[in-house]
């Protein structure tokens, strides 16, 4: 697929370009600063934009803001945010527009297959959240407490963006069992049938959001 890379770190950029070319993706443009990126996207109409969460000028969260903006302005273009932090930026990203978007740790660069899978998934309209981000210890409170352990496992894999079949493979159970666990999750989280098609996303959001500690009293 056609990709634009936005990354200011020299080593990371080189590494990314090498991995992408090995995966036979075509990098149509690269940028080191966020300002010109929307124009680049408008010109090249790539399938996906890969960007670092930390970009100049302040090197804090410019990449995240750029990602949110790109999703809003170019709904057909997928955005994958790469980060070195496990911080909870993923929920923020998904809340804005829970499709064609992903949040991965840069560790995944070394795992070409996982990166490729995530790229294809979000380019096809899905989401991808890094397993390490999803795996942050669950606080023992909130709506998630009602879930069984298996249901929680299924939900965590859904949050990473896996399909029922992918989850079945990962957990070594039948796909039908996964579907039944998923129904249990939707029911316990109060996600109704009318939320057609987006029940998974709603569940994932609930999952990511619910890990935030609740406000006191």
């Amino acid at each position, binding site marked *: 697929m056609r990709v634009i890379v936005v990354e200011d*770190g020299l*080593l*990371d950029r*080189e*590494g990314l370009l*090498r*991995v992408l070319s*090995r995966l036979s993706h075509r990098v149509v443009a690269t940028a080191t600063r966020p300002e010109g990126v929307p124009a680049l996207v408008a010109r090249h109409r790539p399938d996906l934009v890969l960007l670092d969460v*930390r970009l100049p000028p*302040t*090197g*804090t*969260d410019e990449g995240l803001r750029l990602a949110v903006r790109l999703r809003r302005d170019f709904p057909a273009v997928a955005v994958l945010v790469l980060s*070195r*932090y*496990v*911080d*909870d930026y993923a929920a923020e990203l998904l809340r804005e527009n829970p499709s064609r978007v992903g949040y991965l740790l*840069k*560790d995944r*660069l*070394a*795992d*070409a297959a996982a990166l490729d899978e995530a790229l294809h998934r979000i380019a096809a309209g899905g989401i991808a959240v890094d397993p*390490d981000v999803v795996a*942050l*210890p669950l*606080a*023992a*409170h909130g709506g998630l407490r009602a879930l069984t352990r298996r249901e929680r496992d299924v939900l965590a894999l859904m949050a990473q963006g896996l399909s029922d079949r992918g989850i079945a493979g990962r957990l070594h159970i039948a796909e039908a069992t996964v579907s039944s666990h998923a129904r249990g999750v939707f029911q316990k989280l109060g996600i109704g049938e009318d939320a057609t098609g987006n029940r998974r996303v709603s569940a994932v959001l609930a999952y990511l959001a619910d*890990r*935030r*500690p*609740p*406000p*006191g*009293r």
Partner: protein
Amino acid sequence: MENPGFRAAAPAAGPAVRVAVPVMLGTGLAVVLGDAWLAARWGGHGAVFYTKELVQVTGWLVAGALVARIRPRSPMGVLMTLLGLLLAADAPASFALAAPGLALRVMATAGLLLTALQLPLGAHVFLAYPSGAVRDLAGRAVTAAGYVFGAVSVVLLAVFGPARPDGECRDVCAPLSLTSDPDAGRLTTQALAAGTVVFVLAGASVIVRRFLRAGGRERRLLLFPTAAMIIAAVLWASINLLGAVHLPPAGAPGAESVLAAAQFTSLLTVPAAFLLGQLRERLDEARVSDLVRGIAVLPAGRLEAALAAALGDPQLQVAYPVAGGWVDGTGAPVPVPEAPDPRRFTVVGPLDRPAAVLLHDPTLRDEPRLLEAVAATARLALENARLEAEVRARLAEVRASRARLVEAGDRARRRLERDLHDGAQQRMLRIGVALAEARDELRGTVAAPGTARLLDEAEAELREAVRELRELARGIHPAVLTARGLRPAVEQLALRSTVPVTLDVADLPRLDRTVEATAYFVAGEALANAARHARATSVRVRVALDGDRLVVEVEDDGIGGAAPGPDSGLAGLLDRVAALDGALTLHSPPGKGTMLTAELPAHPPAPPLPPAPPLEPPCG
């Protein structure tokens, strides 16, 4: 040249003044008696006219002598007495002496010529109030112009004489003059009256401007005399305006006599106001005795207020010299100009090693004895206060440097965190990419059987190393704190806690970085302790702004009994919080849980002291 401080004792009144004033007073009173005799014998007006004239003259004489007695060093009394003497001497010029013989004509003529000096000397006295010296440029210019105008008037009057009234001889009748052209006399009188109007208005404007520019203390002293002077000046100007516009002065007696009465009253009010003003300053000295009584038990913090009260100068400031500048009683820096106005600046103690300097209203320098008394009284207390201020200033500096150390430490931590991400972690990822490529290369070749396994091991180790490095960087300084501030950072902390956390974190504005980091570390340390030592089952974290304080409160339901050991994280936090001028309290009764509360200033720290000006005598 003026002495910079009052180190030198105020010089005693010179013998000239001590002798001159009584002599002038005696002479003046004698002349008044002579005037009275002339008036009784040949006066053409009613008794009321002469009485008011002579009362006014006597008023100036007596007030001048009293002022000279109250303020022997000030020329004010001499000037006032001199004016009285002049008024006494020129009074016969307006007496309308009937049946003038030559002797009386000579006397009236002399009086008339002296009358020309009334204006300049009067202006001099007005402009010299209250110190006795005309100090400002405008005042000096007006005074000098007055004397020139007076001299010209004398010449003109001597040559052309005054205007002669058409009707009954009421004022100066037939004085001697070199010419006797009635038109020239009339013209002279009119011109002089007009000149007087202009001159009086110029002088009045100087006085008004001075009043408007005066500080609080000076205004208080000037209010009454200024009002009296301005009224007198306006009336004087009005009468001369009438005289300049329609001659003869005998014209409309009604309006003019009302004006004259008003002028008389106001002219008499001026010496009274001057006398009262000087008396009031004298009363200030009584307050010194209050100061003497209270100063032994006065806390250093109230010294400035007590001195301000004793000197009657609410704006008074006390500045103490410390290494590196001037500070007030609290140790806060005070701006003292490089070359202070010597009239607003008084050194207490030896010039090379002063106990303090007083920054005060310039009029206080006209009362050196008051200043001297107050300073002598307060010297010991000021010396003590200086020592205290010095300690406070040092303490403030130590505090500031401690806060700077913490700040520098935080900066280093932020940089380290960034360097770990940008340096080591990037390189480790490159290794990961290279390993993955190596595995690709191996695929399909016949390699040693252990190679693939070694690659797997290396990748697994690398993944773990990257994870550990990430957590290390987070522990050094969390990126989310820099990027998003305290609330998201605390939320992340809570997310990672193994003990369930209830958060009560207000929406906070971004605060000083060091304060945010300190609050974060307090919450982190308390959460870690709750999980590690307290065996808590729940923790509550509250972060809120309370006025200009940021409050962080972490409460668990664990076993309590926590105490900050010498090398514990808590001890480090105590230092850190104290360095920011905050307070950290630990409440941990055994068996009843632990509550750690930090209060931090929610604003940036104060700037350091300004550089010190050299302490030199304020005037050369």
